[in-house]
C-alpha cells in the first residue's frame, strides 16, 4: 500500500523533509506514509519505512549444511553495507536470497518492505545486481548489452542515453561500440554500473564486484558506488577488500559460518581496528 503510493510521486515538500532530516543528498522523494484526515494530508514518518533492504532471521540450508543462520540485516537509502567474510561465510548466499535466486529456509527477505519470495517481480524491479564476474554478451557491444538489460529491466534506453551512461561509468567513448568480448573485467564492471544506473533502481546488490580488478579500476568502481550512494541508493556489497569496505562503506558486517558476527558503522572504526577485528573473527572461526 505504502509503496504503491510511493511510486505515484509526491509533493515536493515531502521530498525536502526526507532529504533534510533523513537522508541528505537522497533523490528519493517520499519516505513516509500518506494518510488523509478531515481533508488534511498527513505524513507518518517512521524509521522502519526507510529500510530498503532487510533480512529478518534469515536462514538457508543446503541439504544438511546451514549456509545462513538467522541473519538480521538492514540497509537504508544512501547506505553502503559491506559484508566481509571468508569464503563460505554466507555472503553470496545472502545476495542470492535478496535476488530471489534461491528461497529462504526460514525467515524473510524484504526489498522496499516487500517480501522477495512473494513479490519476486516487483522486488526485482527495484533492484540492480552486479555479480563478481559480470557476464555480458560477448558478441554484442557495450551499448547493445546496456540497451538489452536496461530494456529487460523496464527502462528502454536510446543510443545517446546509453552512451552517456557508459561514459559516465568510466568507459571510453570508443569502447562503447566495441564488442564486449574485447573488454577487460574492469570495463565489464563499468557496464554493470551503467546498467544499474539505467535501471534507476533504488537498491544495488554487488557480489564481490572488485575482486580481480586492478587498484585503479577498483578505485574508479568505488567512486561510482559513492556517487550512487550519494543519490540515495541502498547498496549491499560483499567483498574481501577491507580497505575498500572501510573507504566506501557506511556500514560493515563481518560474517562467519553463516552468521553475522559484527555490524558496525564505518565511521566508528579505523582501518587497523577493522583489520584486527576481522582477523580475530576469522581466527575464532578456525578455532571454533
Amino acid at each position: 500500500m505504502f509503496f504503491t503510493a510511493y511510486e505515484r510521486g509526491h509533493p515536493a515538500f515531502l521530498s525536502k523533509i526526507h532529504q533534510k532530516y533523513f537522508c541528505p543528498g537522497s533523490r528519493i522523494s517520499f519516505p513516509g506514509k500518506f494518510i488523509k484526515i478531515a481533508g488534511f494530508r498527513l505524513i507518518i514518518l517512521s524509521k522502519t519505512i526507510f529500510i530498503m533492504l532487510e533480512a529478518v532471521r534469515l536462514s538457508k540450508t543446503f541439504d544438511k549444511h546451514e549456509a545462513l543462520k538467522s541473519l538480521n540485516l538492514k540497509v537504508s537509502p544512501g547506505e553502503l553495507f559491506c559484508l566481509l567474510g571468508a569464503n563460505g561465510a554466507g555472503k553470496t548466499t545472502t545476495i542470492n536470497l535478496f535476488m530471489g535466486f534461491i528461497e529462504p529456509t526460514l525467515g524473510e527477505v524484504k526489498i522496499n518492505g516487500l517480501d522477495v519470495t512473494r513479490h519476486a517481480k516487483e522486488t526485482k524491479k527495484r533492484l540492480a545486481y552486479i555479480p563478481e564476474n559480470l557476464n555480458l554478451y560477448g558478441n554484442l557491444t557495450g551499448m547493445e548489452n546496456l540497451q538489452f538489460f536496461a530494456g529487460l529491466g523496464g527502462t528502454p534506453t536510446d543510443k545517446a542515453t546509453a552512451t552517456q551512461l557508459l561514459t559516465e561509468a568510466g568507459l571510453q567513448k570508443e569502447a562503447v561500440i566495441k564488442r564486449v568480448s574485447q573488454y577487460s573485467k574492469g570495463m565489464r564492471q563499468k557496464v554493470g554500473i551503467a546498467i544499474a544506473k539505467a535501471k534507476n533502481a533504488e537498491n544495488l546488490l554487488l557480489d564481490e564486484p572488485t575482486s580481480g580488478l586492478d587498484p585503479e579500476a577498483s578505485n574508479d568502481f568505488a567512486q561510482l558506488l559513492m556517487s550512487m550512494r550519494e543519490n540515495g541508493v541502498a547498496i549491499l556489497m560483499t567483498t574481501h577488500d577491507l580497505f575498500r569496505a572501510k573507504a566506501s562503506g557506511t556500514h560493515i558486517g563481518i560474517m562467519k559460518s553463516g552468521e553475522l558476527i559484527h555490524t558496525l558503522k564505518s565511521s566508528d572504526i579505523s582501518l587497523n581496528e577493522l583489520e584486527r577485528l576481522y582477523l580475530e573473527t576469522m581466527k575464532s572461526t578456525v578455532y571454533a
Partner: protein
Amino acid sequence: MLKIIIKKEFLSSVRDVRLQVSAAILLSLMITAVLVGKEGQRQIQKQREAAQSAMYDQWLNQGNKHPHSAAHFGQFAFKPKPILSFLDVGLDHYTGVSVFLEAHKQNEVLFSGAQDSNGMTRFGELTGALIFQLLLPLLIIFLAFNTFTKEREEGTLKMIHAQGLSMRTLLMGKVWGIYLMVLLLFIPIIFLAYLLLDRQSSSLDTEVTVKFLSLTGLYSLYFLLFVMMAVLISGFSKNSGFSLLTLLGIWIVACIILPKATTNFAGKLYPTPSQFEFRQAIKEKVKNGIDGHNPSDARLATLKQQVLDEYGVSTVEELPVNWGGIAMQAGEEYTDDVYDQEFSKIEQIFKQQNRLSEWMGFIDPYLAIRHLSMGLAGTDFNHHVLFARKAENYRRAFVKKMNKDMELNHKPGVAYADYNADKDMWAQVEPFEYHLPDTVSILRDQWRGMAALAFWLIILLIISVKYSNRISGL
C-alpha cells in the same frame, strides 16, 4: 519486452561465425537444390510432353487397320512432372513415369527412376524437401541447443533473471528470435523458387500459387515446431552437451529411424503380395472369365444367346451388329472387373500403409510434413493412384470406342482383315491429359498431416506456457 529479446537473439545469431558458416553452406545447398531441381523438372516435363505428343502422333498415323488391332496397338500415357515436384520429388523415383495402354490388359506404370539408378538413390536426391525437412531442422538444433544452457553456463541468465524477466517471456523471445533467423534463410529461397516458377512455367496459375503458399506455410510451421522444441530442451537441460545430445538424438529418431521403422512396420502390418502373386491372381481370374477371342468359351455362348434373344434372331450372321465387337467388349468388361478388384486390393494395402505413416505424424512431425509436402508437390502415392486411374479410364474409353466401332461398322460376314478404320477414327480418341487435383482436395486428403502439425504446436505451446517458469535462471 519480446522485441528486445528477439533483437538480441537475432543479433547474437547473426554475429556467430559458426552459424554464419553453416548458414552459408545451407543457403548455397538450398540455392543449388532449387536451381538444379527446377531445371531438372523443366527438362523432364519437356521430355514427357514431347513423348506424349510423339506417341499420340504415332497413334494417329498407325495406318488403316481393324479397330481391335488398333486397340492392341495401344497408346502410352506419360505422367506429367508436376511444377512443384522440383521442391519435393517424393515417390516419383519409385512410382514410374509411363504406362502402356492396350486392349484386355491393365498394365502397371513403369520406368521408375529407381530402376535406372544405383543404390545412392536410397539416400535421397538433393531437393528443397531434403533440405527443408532434414537439414534445416539440423541447423535449428545448432542455432538453439545452447540458447539457455550457454547463458546459464556463462552467467548471463542470472543477469536476465535479476531484471525480473519471467522465463516464459524469455523463452518466447528466444523462440521468435531464432525463428526469425530461420525464416531469413528460408523465405529468400522460397521466393527465389517462386520467381523461377514465374519465369519458366507457362502453366503457372492460381492453383500452383495456392499450393506453393500452402507449402511455404506448412514448412514455416514445421520449422517453428523444431525451434520451440530445441529452445525448450535447452531450457530444461543442465548443460549444452546434454541439450545437443538430446536434440541430435531426437533428430536421428524423428528424421531417420522412425520413418524407416514406420515403413517396415506398415509393410509387416499390411503385407503387399509379390509381383508374381499379384499377376498370378489376375491371370487365374481372367482365365475363369469371358474370353472375347475364344468362340468356344461357355460364358460367351450364354452371352451370345442373350444377344440373339434380344435381337430376335437365331444366328450371329443375322444380327444387325457385329457379334465380335460385343464379345470383345464383354471380355473387356470382365477383365476390367478383375483388374479393378485386384488393383483396388493392392491400392488398399498401400493406402493402409500410407495412412499408418500419416497417423505416425502425431508422434513424428517429420512424417507429417513429408506427406504434406509430397501431397502439395504432386509426388505422393495418392497422385500416382489418381494418374494410374485416369490412365486406366482413358484406356477403357478408347478400347470401348474401338470395340463399338467394330460392333457397329464391321458388318457380319466381312473378314477381320477386310474391315479397316482410318485416321478419322483414331482422331476420335482425344489425346491423354492428366491434371493434378486442386489444393483443397489435396489438403482434405492430407488432414492427418495438418492435424499432426497442429497437435505438435498445441503441445509445445502448452509446455511453453505451463512449464517454462520452471526453467532455472541459475
